[in-house]
């Protein structure tokens, strides 16, 4: 609690700090008990831990998220409802720094997360407590190195992912300025969570149509592509023939014309 307070104090100068505090005070009082009692608790001990986490999550939510997503995560004209999105969605969005969003005019981008792991877990617990949804993934659950098959993953990737994220996971353009981000350097668990939650423009890939094992294969293939050294020299961004054409007109023809000028110049 002490630690949480200290963290809280970090945000006290936040522009939403005033109203948020008021809201926290009112809502925590009103709902904590209700939520805690509504949770199916396997044991008293765990329930208590869980309810503390949820309480903490609720507190952070009210400070950082509620201005857009609504006080009860019911959504607003500018942000979707979060009831039923599940812990996985929160873990992905907050863990990759996409949420909270700085600039509403743009697509949420991957950036340094604002909340640390515990805070993210608390937020996830809170949102998960609102309605059931996909649970967040921990690293241990995705032993893609052990359970995945690279080649199969490649097949699945090309059928289900490459159309947006490009053949090598470099990302690509969508309509009206939206884009599919690059998959390079993304933690395996976030890739997994993205597949089961469908963040932003991305659709959901259900466990029945792409089984958890298949998802691990996809991740294994992405990681293989990410770690694949450049077999034929500089990769030119792995975006296809556009950069190749650019290089041939600049470096290729440029060098040749430069040498032509030297070749035809009179020696002194």
């Amino acid at each position: 609690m002490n630690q949480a307070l200290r963290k809280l104090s970090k945000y006290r100068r936040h522009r939403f700090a005033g109203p948020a505090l008021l809201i926290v005070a009112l809502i925590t009082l009103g709902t904590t008990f209700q939520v805690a009692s509504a949770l199916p608790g396997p044991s008293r001990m765990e329930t208590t831990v869980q309810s503390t986490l949820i309480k903490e999550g609720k507190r952070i939510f009210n400070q950082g998220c509620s201005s857009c997503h609504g006080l009860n995560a019911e959504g607003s004209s500018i942000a979707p409802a979060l009831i039923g999105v599940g812990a996985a969605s929160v873990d992905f969005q907050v863990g990759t720094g996409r949420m909270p969003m700085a600039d509403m005019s743009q697509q949420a981008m991957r950036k340094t997360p604002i909340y640390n792991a515990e805070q993210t877990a608390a937020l996830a617990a809170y949102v998960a407590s609102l309605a059931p949804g996909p649970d967040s993934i921990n690293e241990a659950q995705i032993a893609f190195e052990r359970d995945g098959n690279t080649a199969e993953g490649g097949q699945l990737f090309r059928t289900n992912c490459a159309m947006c994220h490009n053949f090598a996971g470099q990302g690509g353009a969508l309509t009206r300025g939206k884009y599919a981000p690059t998959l390079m350097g993304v933690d395996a668990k976030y890739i997994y969570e993205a597949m089961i939650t469908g963040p932003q423009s991305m659709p959901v890939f259900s466990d029945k149509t792409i089984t958890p094992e298949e998802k691990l294969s996809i991740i294994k293939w992405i990681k293989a592509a990410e770690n694949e050294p450049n077999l034929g020299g500089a990769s030119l961004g792995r975006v296809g023939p556009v950069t190749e054409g650019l290089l041939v007109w600049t470096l290729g023809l440029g060098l040749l014309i430069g040498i032509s000028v030297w070749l035809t110049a009179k020696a002194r």
Partner: protein
Amino acid sequence: MSNEIRKFEDPGLPAHVHRKTDTDPKAADRAERQVAILFVLSALSTVLAIYSYIFVKDDLFFFIPIMGDTNAHQLGLGLGMAFALLFIGLGLVHWAKTLMPDTEIIQERHEFRSPEEDRNDFVATVKEQAADAGLGRRSLIKRTLGLALGISALTPLVLLRDLGPLPKKDLETTSWKKGTRLVTDPGDRPIRPEDLEVGAVAQVLPELAVGQDRTLSDIGKDAVLLIRLRPSEFQLDAERLSWTHDGIIAFSKICSHMGCAVALYEQQTKHLLCPCHQSTFDVTRAAKVIFGPSARPLPQLAITVDAQGYLVAQQPFTESVGPSYWERSS
């Protein structure tokens, strides 16, 4: 201003300026050495190429700034070859530039037109020869020869006939029939409606009968994209709505423009985008084209569930899938 006004006179070819190598034997010797060094460098590069080919393992990588992890075998072989060639070329050119005579030479041009006399002679000869051959008089020969030559060109065309079968109904039909199950691609697992959450997509193909095989040509017509929305989000007429099942709608994945796989589904906007030419389709309005060059919506596949609760086609596609063609009726 007219052409007659005297222009500036041609001062003629500027006097030849001697190079250093022409006047200074030391400079010439230096140039010779430079050329020789280039040729030796070329030979060394060849050694590098052959060394890399034989001795450098192809799983050896090392890091180079900008290029990233680079294959040593490929790089050694490639650079060796490149520099072996480059240095020969540079040496030859340097040799030519510095040591070969560089005095410019003037050669005369002559008009290509033959003298009038020759031209007339030529015409006369041709006319004479034509007359000798009887081309003017024997018109029957001329015409039948023309006929024979013209018609003989048909044989090679006819010979090409067996390149392929006639299209017949092939462009109009797919493997989808009433009751064909939708199975995942890849994986071939049948799908129940409850397998798909709202916002989910699945790439599907028609289920294969036992012992049947799927060719790429089949996939090129049969590929279907399955999307689940909230039923309230549809803006469809009654018929098209009856082709959906519980918010699940199915479209041909083969673009109605040029046949690329249209599979970029944006969950929030419910738009489908083709990455080839950026035709954009609105899923909620039966894949109506809202942007780009495609002129037709993607064909919708009517779906329902069978007795086991798996998704199946209600009927075959009601129109041809894929790009347009002359015989297409709508």
